[in-house]
């Protein structure tokens, strides 16, 4: 497969949000390329959605500049933009029962003609992606009848069908059971190898370790970026973000995925029978 050229999206000294008087994020400088894998951590309400909406072009920055490969993002037509940046929202309901194949085919919209007639190459791309994500068996099922986890995989497949160089994922694992979470992380590593940039919001810091990802922290209207997950994920910093004590343990296990894990400290101790009988 021929690799399209690298992608680079840049925010320069940008205020983000809805009102000029009270931006949710201030003076943001951020560069993302198709070689980056970045996990976004932060409490709810710290501007994660605002950041994503801005990078997707839904919400223009209040000030500063936002460029894609050197050209202001707002000058791109939606079609062009969709060929560079794909979005994986949290899966939700649709009112109409499209099949999984049809939903994934929607991802090809930016590559189709004006009237949206799928060509052979579009259908081939859908097949390839269904195989890659191991969801070919769902192809003819109705999207509305799937479980939350299956739906999320279909939405990821739809984004992959766009063949964009940057994938923006909004807590893609939150509705998945544990097995599917692990499978999802596995697929994301696969994308990394194919030089697709990943920007992923997550509530589980462990995922940054597992993906060996950079960490972007949102706190008090600012961004902090760490190249190395073990710099970001330290008990002191985790306490600041989440307000609870979290230990970071090095398991010393080699292999795919980082060896460190986060372990929350539960303070209320459970009264067990062992405690009472010495």
């Amino acid at each position: 497969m021929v690799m399209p050229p690298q992608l680079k999206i840049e925010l320069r000294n940008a205020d983000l949000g809805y009102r000029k008087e009270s931006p949710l994020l201030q003076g943001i400088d951020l560069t993302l390329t198709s070689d980056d894998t970045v996990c976004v951590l932060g409490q709810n309400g710290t501007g994660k959605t605002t950041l994503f909406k801005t990078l997707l072009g839904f919400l223009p920055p209040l000030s500063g500049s936002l460029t894609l490969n050197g050209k202001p993002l707002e000058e791109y037509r939606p079609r062009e933009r969709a060929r560079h940046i794909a979005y994986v929202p949290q899966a939700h309901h649709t009112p109409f029962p499209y099949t999984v194949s049809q939903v994934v085919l929607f991802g090809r919209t930016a590559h189709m003609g004006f009237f949206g007639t799928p060509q052979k190459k579009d259908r081939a791309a859908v097949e390839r992606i269904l195989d890659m994500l191991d969801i070919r068996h769902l192809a003819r099922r109705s999207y509305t009848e799937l479980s939350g986890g299956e739906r999320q995989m279909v939405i990821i497949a739809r984004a992959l069908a766009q063949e964009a160089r940057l994938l923006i994922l909004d807590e893609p694992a939150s509705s998945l059971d544990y097995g599917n979470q692990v499978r999802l992380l596995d697929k994301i590593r696969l994308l990394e190898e194919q030089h697709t940039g990943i920007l992923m919001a997550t509530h589980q810091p462990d995922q940054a370790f597992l993906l060996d990802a950079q960490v972007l922290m949102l706190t008090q209207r600012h961004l902090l970026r760490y190249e190395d997950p073990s710099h970001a994920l330290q008990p002191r910093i985790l306490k600041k973000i989440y307000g609870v004590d979290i230990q970071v343990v090095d398991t010393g296990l080699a292999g795919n995925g980082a060896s460190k894990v986060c372990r929350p400290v539960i303070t209320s101790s459970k009264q067990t029978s062992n405690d009472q009988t010495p």
Partner: protein
Amino acid sequence: MTRNSLMVSGCVLLLLVAAVFSLQNGRYPVSGTQLLALLMDGRSEDPHLHTVIYNIRLPRIIAAIAVGGALSLAGAAYQGMFRNPMVSPDILGVSSGAGFGAALAILLSLPVAGVQASAFAGGILAVVLAISISRSIGRHHNAILVLVLSGIIISALFSALISLAKFSADPENRLPAITFWLMGSLADIRLQELPAVIALVAAGSLPILLSGWRLNVLSFGEDEAQALGIHTSRVRMIVIGSATLVTASVIALSGLIGWIGLVIPHAARMISGPDHRVQLPVSFLLGGIALLVFDNIARSVSASEIPIGIITALAGAPFFIVLLKLTSRKTW
């Protein structure tokens, strides 16, 4: 794709059958051979036959197809765009706007053409007002929700104005005229009124029929459709503009005919599936068939004709219940 074209051709065939049946059916029965002779060489021994077919039934049949088709197509497009199967073509106020336009023209004793023009203008004006209100409220809110609410505001306003018009109309002539107009009828349609309506319906239907794929993608919501490469605000304007054009022009011709635009898209979705590229043309064809059938009932069930708006509402309710039962196992 062959399955889809088969479905569309099947609907076209059914429409033709319904049209031929409607040509023959009525107080003045016409046999198949008589009809064939008339249509083939334009002659017949019966002097009334020509008038019955060309001046009365044919205009009515064409009007029924145009009105039913346009209302169903507009309803299907709106249901897709608003991502809500409960939406009907008058969601943005076009019906009450047209109703007020017609009532005002009747109050002013305008001729038929004036009533039609006024109804058309009223329908367009109502939707333009609804869009202006939603724009003035701003873009930071949920655009679709604000639009629907603006439509409700405008509908309520124009309904009040219709009541005002009725209240000030003289009860001998104008009040019944307004009331009958609001019930909807295909009875008085003349051949010369049709070309303009057909041209407007065609002009509005074409952009909708070509928006099928984009409506499919829009069903995942504004943000996702944008991320997938759809110019969502443009699609919305195309759909609203076209749907308003077709709805206002057919209402101007027929008066208010409810239910068709809400129910038929469901029936279409049931046989065609949710892909708007098929569902939209099937909706148009089924709408035409349904209104033809209802019009046959309207003009043959009793000695004096029943306004078709009453028939569609009476038939629509049980029909919708059956449809909901049939589709209840699936989500929409």
